[in-house]
């Protein structure tokens, strides 16, 4: 599985730009949304290979948006990885129940972001067709 296009969803512009700059340095193409609602709207006409999503956002939070993405036939194949300061075990378990494929805790390193992409690629390769 090849990951090229990545959607970053975070209401904090500094976080969005930080993750985007890490990804762009890794030669990924990045789009950004500032809420779960905006991300869902974008997904009607744009299909990324991976989504990095914050959890705590105004209006529609990351849990709800992830559930909407993973429940929708058109978008359910897109892996969602949470990038959040919500780092309790319950948050990780609840994230998995919403369909998330990974969870990165803030603050994160560049390597953690890039490693998450590798992990998703490996998981996708191992999944049966």
């Amino acid at each position, binding site marked *: 599985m090849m990951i090229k296009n990545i959607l*970053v969803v975070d209401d904090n512009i500094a976080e*969005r*730009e930080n993750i*985007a*700059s890490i990804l*762009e340095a890794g030669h990924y*193409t*990045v*789009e*950004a*949304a*500032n809420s779960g*609602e*905006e991300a*869902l*709207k*974008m997904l*009607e006409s744009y299909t990324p290979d991976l989504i990095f999503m914050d959890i*705590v956002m105004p209006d*529609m*939070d990351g*849990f*709800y948006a992830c*559930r*909407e993405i993973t*429940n*929708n*036939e*058109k*978008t*359910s194949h897109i892996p969602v990885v949470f990038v959040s300061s919500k780092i*309790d*075990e*319950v*948050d990780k*378990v*609840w994230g998995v*129940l919403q369909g998330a494929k990974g969870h990165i805790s803030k603050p994160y390193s560049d390597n953690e972001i890039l490693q998450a992409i590798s992990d998703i690629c490996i998981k996708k390769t191992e999944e049966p067709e």
Partner: protein
Amino acid sequence: MKYQKTALTHQDTLLPLHNEEDTAVHRYGFKINNLGLTYPPHIAGEVIKVKHVCRIPNSPKCLHGVINVRGHIIPAFDLNTLFYNQQATGNLFMILDKGSAAVAICINDFPILLNHAQELEHENIQDSSLPIAIRQFIRTCFHTNEQRWIEPDFAAFFLSLKS
């Protein structure tokens, strides 16, 4: 910075977010004692672990207290006390809805994803074994292999606890 940020207008956000036909309806179920409860898919749900619940003096036993969820002070209910007169243990809470509409419910175990629940006919769900406090608020009911899951009108139910 090369990435593009698409600006949405207010009108854009009023458009449907997805085609309902594309969406599989998944529900989450949680238990109060042996009573299985679900909530509608359009309601935001979250599970949190709370170390400190602020008790409210002279409040009903079923009101466990209030908790702070990211700056929102919301009521935390102990439905185990209300339904079965047994105090809930543990510090897990199911948060239903968000903002000022949010409520917390003490739960002992993590909710589970109900993938293949079948809806029951409404006639089948009036059952004298159900707690009296929730009977009139039952909207629908699902069953999985071994468990029945009740979906009440939570807004009306919690409103009734106010009075």
